[in-house]
């Protein structure tokens, strides 16, 4: 029984490693941008522009 266990372990290990390969890899990503979505954008800054208080508030959804 013990012999069978050792044999099974040896066999499966040898089989597994004989099937195993490893290496290095590299490459290029094209159109890597993916989707960039500005879900919401608000510019909230009070500016003095030609003597006027100027408040800009915007919301944009863009893909």
């Amino acid at each position, binding site marked *: 029984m013990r012999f069978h266990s050792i044999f099974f372990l040896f066999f499966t290990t040898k089989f*597994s490693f004989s*099937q*195993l*390969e*490893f*290496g*290095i*890899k*590299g*490459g*290029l*990503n*094209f*159109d*890597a*941008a*993916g*989707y*960039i*979505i*500005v*879900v*919401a*954008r*608000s*510019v*909230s*800054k009070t500016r003095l522009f030609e003597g006027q208080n100027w408040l800009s508030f915007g919301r*944009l959804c*863009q*893909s």
Partner: protein
Amino acid sequence: MKGKTGYHLGVYAKVNILAFYLRPELQFTRVSSQFEHQSIETSRIELPVSFGINMLGPVSLFFIPTTFFNLSQGSNELKLEEIQNKTSMSLHIGTRLKLDTIGVDLRYEKGLTAMQSNLLSQAGVPVGGQINTQPNQFTVGVSFKLN
């Protein structure tokens, strides 16, 4: 928005099981996106585990659920807060040509979850907002078997 080119470098292991194979990979990926004349650079560590089917001769088909860990996202003019969800998932599908020790693969990647980061300022002007990015790209990879 215009897409730009990025690159990836890494290591892989492959276990053949009859007509199938499992191929876990670990790679560093850096991609660049262009948005409103601004370049947004994203770096991440990816862990794709491809399940492949050997087809005709050296050609195989594979699909890959990929987990990736976002390292950083930055831009020259846009100031972004750290990415909120560091870990994301994507799905690759592709084909691989294996010629002796060299393998060439072409794959399409589609992000399953969006990466969110808060916009803090643009050109020094404080702005509030949120940017969602989601991978949607083609990659060409070359692998070299070491053993």
